[in-house]
């Protein structure tokens, strides 16, 4: 397996998930198809 954890989406939830996973020492990847803001930052 390439990764222990793969996160789909680099919005608010995905970024926190990826940072948590790397903090726990897991081989971590995050996938994003768009910008890196997610909805919260882009629309609020």
């Amino acid at each position, binding site marked *: 397996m390439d990764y222990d954890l793969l996160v*789909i*989406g680099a919005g*608010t*939830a995905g970024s926190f998930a990826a940072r948590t996973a790397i903090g*726990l020492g897991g*081989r971590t*990847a995050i996938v994003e198809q768009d910008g890196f803001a997610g909805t919260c930052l882009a629309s609020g």
Partner: protein
Amino acid sequence: MLVSTVELAWRARRGAELGLAGAAGVGLDWGEVIARKNRIVASWSQGKDQALERQGIAVLRGHATFLAPHELQVGDRTVTTEKIVIATGSSPARPSIEGIEHTVTSEELLDRTALPGRMVAIGGGAIGMELGFAFARAGLYTNVSVRRITGDRTVEADIGGTTHRLSADVVVVATGRPPNTEGLRLDLAGVRLERGTVSVNEYLQSPTAPHVYAAGDVTGRHQHTPAAWYEGRVAAENALKGNHEAVDFNVFPTTIFTIPAVAQVGLTEAEARKRGLRVGVGRSPFEDNTAASVREETEGLVKVIYDEASGQLLGVHILGPNAEDLIHIAAVAMRGGLRRRDLAGMHYVFPTLAGTVFDAMWE
């Protein structure tokens, strides 16, 4: 962000009543308001991918699609992984209203550099209400309601049993945000969807595909930024360390940023009564608050719902100035198990808006 700018302008204009000279002429340069929003958003997202990479996270660009339970296609490459967190968010619904093609989403609306003359918002949820208030306070006529949109952005709406025809320059649709699950091929991972939502247990884990977790708007439960932070962390921890933390939303304060805002934590009076609880209700209006009077912002009240026998706080609702901050007094009290009497007996600073929260604890 836009609400705060609009509110500032609205406050400034009201400053005329408080003796501010020239306040009545304060206006909004909407092009600059939107440009500033876009600059701030760009600065927040800029470099975020590099920051993730610096932390040791592999950043893969492209659309992710499942090929098999542990195998995904990302752009033109294939990756394999033990565990997966789905955090794909949500997108605005396009309800099947006749003439829906004449409408815009909240995101499209917030990129326009000119204020429309007249706006109709369809949908009375948080986003519809916020847009309605922000734009109305920006000086527009707005209306929250609908039936059909005929050709030239004329909205036919039923209001109190009679049909009204509202002609608008822009019609914005804000009728909820279904999860982004299409195109992921979650079926190939064995993930069950419930009405388009990734269904998860209290550990944020898919019961049908135990290696898959979900966090944020895609779970269709609490569509708020703090829920996304929290669920992102919990999902990743449970995925890597085994299920050890169940999500807990017992004390989850939220706010709708109308002007003034409305904030809540816990149960409403109706919800508490439906649970068969013996409910007591306390209220204190901002009219009775000196700090609110001084600002000439006396609209609203604090309402407290508590268990009559024990005084345990069941819910607190605030409509009024700074409601979005004041609600945290109630949230902390509920989290710490403080009773109504503990708060009623508090010393507090005079004059402050917070005083009304404590005053509402007396009966």
